[in-house]
Structure formats: structure tokens, C-alpha cells
């Protein structure tokens, strides 16, 4: 087993980190304090990200991405994840892999503008009454001639305000399963401005300032069948095929912020003096640092291993869930401990710690709560022995 990075991977880390520190960090305070990311700033940083080949680098080469293997992509995600989420997600966007599921015409119409930074995509799955239980959704679509009529409400839809279109998951039927009736789901590409489709301002929330969520309403919204992504009733399969690695993306970005918090804590423990000595000399602080570093390395190894297995074709759902679970929980612990080591100063917005601590909270919830991850992990263990 070789745990070292290749030369390319080291360079990817080097370039991405330099970019994040130089182009994103200086704007964090503005976005955090105003809760808003200016579009002129987005355009400025986007152009630089494109020059550096960082924009949409998650995508394969044939569509204009960097063609990274999964592990390299996760290293890139970790570096981007250090910064304010709105900044890195908007200015160095990673279009959703699900757009690769499109027909050549759909790729041309939706993926290409995302690659060029002309627009952004957004995924609409969650509903007020359907979160983890996706197949219990109530928003629906019914056929009408060659068209489909969409009705229902989606909420918590990230960055729908700037997205030019949404990929809406709608119930299009029902099937009997051993666990009762489940919805059959179809994914639709819906352009902003389509009559009957409204994007409303969402909720203000604790994490990721400047990164918005919206409420999407579909009221007899008519779209042609050519807007279906994948096949009718196969929306769940499309999502599972193309969105599997998003849990690893959450893990990797969480690792970046955890590492940033930890380096602040280490520096502070070495500089800050109380009772005539560096506070890092007190075991109450130093043992904390050791635990933080150990948790971080453990979470990194789980994440990198899952990324490596992803390309080997041997990754399991549990592997990705373990990485997501461990990395997001480690981030929460490290962010909290880093603040504790800083004392009062840790709570002030002069340092990035208070926001890393706030931002950490959502990571244990979105892309599957920690409880759902534990369910997936244990289910895989039990199924193997007939459970």
C-alpha cells in the first residue's frame, strides 16, 4: 500500500491551496459580514479560476474538466473547502456530475454553460415533508401528451437563486416493495422562467453565510418530455449513479476546514502565554491538540481510501458513509476544540473559527444525516449475514 501523494497530486494541492489563500480568503470577511456574495466579485474570481484550470475541474476532460481521478478530486475539494462555502462553490464551481447523464442535446444546453461559468445548476430533491425519505416525496409530475405537468414544493434548495435551471426530482408513480409502497421518481431539467416555476427566497440559517437556499414552487409547470434527465421512473437510479460521491465531497471539504481550524489552534497554543508559559505546555491544551490531529488523520484516511476504492470500482455505500460520518463529526469536534483553546478570542469574527464552528453544523445534516450514514453502514453489515 502506498499512502504517498503522486507529484501531480502534490501540485494540485499546491495550486489549489495557493489559489484559495490568495483569491478567496481576502473576501471571506465581506461575505460573512454581509451575508452576500457580489456578482461582480464572482465574475472576477471566476475568470482567475478558469485561467488556473480550477473551475469545474471535477469534470472529465472530454467536457472541459481536468479529468482528475477521484482521490485527486477529493484533494482539490479539501483545499477549496478551507474557504467560505459561497466563495468556493460559486467562484470555483463544480457542476453536478448528474449533468453527465444528459443526452448530447441536454449536455450542450445545460452542462456546457455550467462549464463556462455562464450559469449554475441546482438539485431539487428535499421537500418540507420529505428529507432523508426521498421516495416518500409528494411533488409530482403527470404526463400530458408529449409534455409533463409538474406540481409541488421543494425547499432547502441550495444556490437556486443563481442557478439558471434546476434538476427537479418528481414522483411519477408508485411501486410495491418489500418495505411497502414507494414512489417512482423522474428527474426533470427545468429552466428558470418556465411558466409555473417560481423560486422564492429560502430560510436564513446558521451555516455557510452567503450561500443561499431557496423554496421552489411548481404550479402546473409544463415541460416537454425532452427535459427528462435519464428515463421516466428512473430518477432515483440516475441520482444514485451520478451523485454517489457527493458524500465524499462533503467529507473532503469538511477536512479542509478542520485542518484550517487545527492549524490556528496549534499556532495559538504555541504563541499564547498564560501563567508564564505557552498554553500548549499545559496538558489540558496539548492533549486536545493531539486528539484533534488524530481524529483528522483518521477521517482523512477513511476519505482517501474511499476515493481510491471509488476508482478501483470496489467502493461500497458503507465506505462513503463512513468517510462522510467521520469527517463531519471530526470537523465538529475540531472546530469546537479550536475555539476552546482560543478562549474568548475564538468566538470573535476576526478569526475564521466561529464560522468554521457554525459551518460545521450543517455538514452532519446535509447529504444524509449522521444517523442515515450509520443506518447505511450497519445495514450493509447486517445484510451480509442475512439481516
Amino acid at each position, binding site marked *: 500500500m502506498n499512502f504517498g501523494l503522486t*507529484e501531480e497530486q502534490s*501540485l*494540485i494541492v*499546491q*495550486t489549489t491551496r495557493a*489559489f484559495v489563500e490568495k483569491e478567496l480568503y481576502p473576501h471571506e470577511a465581506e461575505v460573512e459580514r454581509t451575508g452576500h456574495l457580489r456578482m461582480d466579485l464572482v465574475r472576477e474570481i471566476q475568470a482567475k479560476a478558469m485561467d488556473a*484550470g*480550477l473551475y469545474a475541474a471535477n469534470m472529465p476532460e472530454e467536457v472541459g474538466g481536468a479529468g482528475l481521478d477521484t482521490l485527486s478530486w477529493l484533494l482539490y475539494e479539501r483545499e477549496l473547502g478551507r474557504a467560505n462555502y459561497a466563495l468556493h462553490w460559486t467562484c470555483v464551481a463544480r457542476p453536478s456530475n448528474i449533468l453527465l447523464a444528459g443526452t448530447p442535446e441536454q449536455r450542450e444546453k445545460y452542462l456546457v454553460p455550467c462549464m463556462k461559468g455562464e450559469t449554475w445548476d441546482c438539485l431539487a430533491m428535499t421537500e418540507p415533508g420529505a428529507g432523508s425519505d426521498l421516495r416518500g416525496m409528494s411533488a409530482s409530475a403527470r404526463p400530458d401528451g408529449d409534455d409533463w405537468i409538474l406540481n409541488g414544493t421543494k425547499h432547502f434548495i441550495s444556490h437556486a437563486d443563481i442557478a439558471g435551471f434546476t434538476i427537479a426530482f418528481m414522483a411519477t408513480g408508485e411501486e410495491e416493495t418489500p418495505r411497502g409502497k414507494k414512489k417512482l421518481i423522474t428527474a426533470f431539467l427545468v429552466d428558470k422562467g418556465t411558466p409555473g416555476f417560481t423560486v422564492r427566497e429560502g430560510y436564513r440559517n446558521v451555516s455557510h453565510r452567503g450561500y443561499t437556499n431557496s423554496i421552489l414552487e411548481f404550479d402546473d409547470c409544463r415541460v416537454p418530455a425532452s427535459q427528462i434527465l435519464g428515463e421516466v421512473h428512473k430518477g432515483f437510479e440516475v441520482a444514485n449513479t451520478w451523485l454517489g460521491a457527493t458524500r465524499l465531497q462533503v467529507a473532503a471539504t469538511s477536512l479542509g476546514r478542520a485542518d484550517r481550524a487545527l492549524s490556528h489552534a496549534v499556532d495559538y497554543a504555541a504563541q499564547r502565554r498564560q501563567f508564564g508559559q505557552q498554553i500548549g505546555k499545559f496538558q489540558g491544551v496539548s492533549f486536545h491538540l493531539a486528539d484533534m490531529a488524530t481524529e483528522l488523520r483518521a477521517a482523512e484516511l477513511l476519505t482517501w481510501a474511499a476515493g481510491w476504492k471509488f476508482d478501483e470500482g470496489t467502493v461500497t455505500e458503507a465506505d462513503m458513509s463512513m468517510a462522510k460520518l467521520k469527517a463531519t463529526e471530526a470537523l465538529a469536534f475540531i472546530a469546537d476544540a479550536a475555539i476552546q483553546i482560543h478562549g474568548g478570542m475564538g468566538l470573535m469574527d476576526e478569526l475564521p473559527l466561529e464560522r468554521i464552528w457554525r459551518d460545521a453544523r450543517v455538514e452532519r445534516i446535509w447529504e444524509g444525516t449522521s444517523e442515515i450514514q450509520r443506518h447505511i453502514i450497519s445495514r450493509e453489515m447486517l445484510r451480509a449475514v442475512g439481516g
Partner: protein
Amino acid sequence: MKVLVPVKRVIDYNVKVRVKADGSGVDLANVKMSMNPFDEIAVEEAIRLKEKGAAEEVVVVSIGVKQAQETLRTALAMGADRAILVVAADDVHQDIEPLAVAKILKAVIDEEQPGLVLAGKQAIDNDMNATGQMLSALLGWSQATFASKLEIEGDSASVTREVDGGLQTIKVKMPCVVTVDLRLNEPRYASLPNIMKAKKKPLDEKTAADLGVDVTPRLTVVKTTEPEGRKAGIKVESVDELIKKLKDEAGVI
């Protein structure tokens, strides 16, 4: 025209430098190393010359330990075409002195025949600021140091130099050695697609012995110490007192 750019692997400028316990030098074990920032500027300038059509090929050379290969890959990922690694040391703590570096570079240049050598004005580890000058003497080429602007005009180069108290523009005959200063340009990021391509670019490896250069040190390091900590300042009571002190004690006004 071929442009040759020597690049040095040095301790990263962000690293807090520590002196080894025995005082023989700076501790480089498990420390982040990067390309010397002035060399990065030289690489950037060479790539720009190529982009402008003033150069056809950019060759980067590094001399030192085998790990300097990483530095060369960075230069290739920025856009250099080809790299040459001259292994001259096994121990990361062994610094190759400017004269030996200049001799090795001369041997490489005799083979490569570049029209221009663009080098950093100095390495940020030992701050010698000597290699470029020595190289030009060994080659018998003209030199222009501390460049903040460079223009190629046919068989000569117009170089604006940062000198004490201002700028000086000189014209030198090509081929020549130009050493670059901080304000010449802002180096680009090694882009992701170029990083992926860098691996396929040629990297030749030689040794100092292959080139017939003896790298045995001629200098002896007597002692290495950390800079003294900054002394506490003083508080003055009034503007008058401040002016008086600036006049009489500091002698600055």
C-alpha cells in the same frame, strides 16, 4: 530562441525557519520546500516570452538533491517545456555553492546553447546573489541583474534594473544572463490541465560528475544563529520629544 531558467529548491518562504541544534545550518528535515520565489518569476517571464513569440523553448534546470525534481515539475506545470535535473548532493542539508552552480550551469549551457538565461537574482535561503554574475563571467556573456522589465529587441535585450534610488535601463547584447527582481511580473498558478500534462514532459537527469564539476565546498560555515528578537520600543511623551529623538538619536531627520 531557447531560454534557460535555473530553479532552486529552497525552504518555503512561509516556513518559520529553525536553526539546527549544532548551529551548522537551518533544519530542513520534514520542512516544506518550494521553488525559490525569484526563480518562479524567471520561469514566468520565460513562459511569457514564449507566449509572445520571442522564445521557442523554455528549459528549466535544477541543481541539488534528487527531490529537486518536484521543483522542476512545478516549473513544467507552469508551462516550461523541458527539464534537466543535475544531482549534485545526497543530503538535503548540503548547499551547492554559487561557483559550483555556475560551473554546472555553464556545462549545461555549452550543450543546450540557449539565447538567454533568466535566473532569480538570488535564492531566499542563503541570499548569495552571486550565481548569475559568476555564470555570465564564466560564459563571457553580458549580464543584466535585478531586472524589473525585460524586452527583447532583435539581438539585444533592453533591461530595466532596480538600482539604489531608482531604475536604470540598459541594453545588453544577446546571448546574455538576466537576473530577475521581485517586480518583474506576478507568476501564474500552475494550472490543473498543465499539471496533468507536466508528467509527460521530458525530465533528463545528470550528475555533477557527468558534467565534470567538483562541488566540494570551498566555504566553511562557522556558525548559524537565529536573528535576535526585536527589542521593545519606547514611548515618548510629546511630539516635540519624538522630533528631538528622531533628530538627535535616530539621526533620520
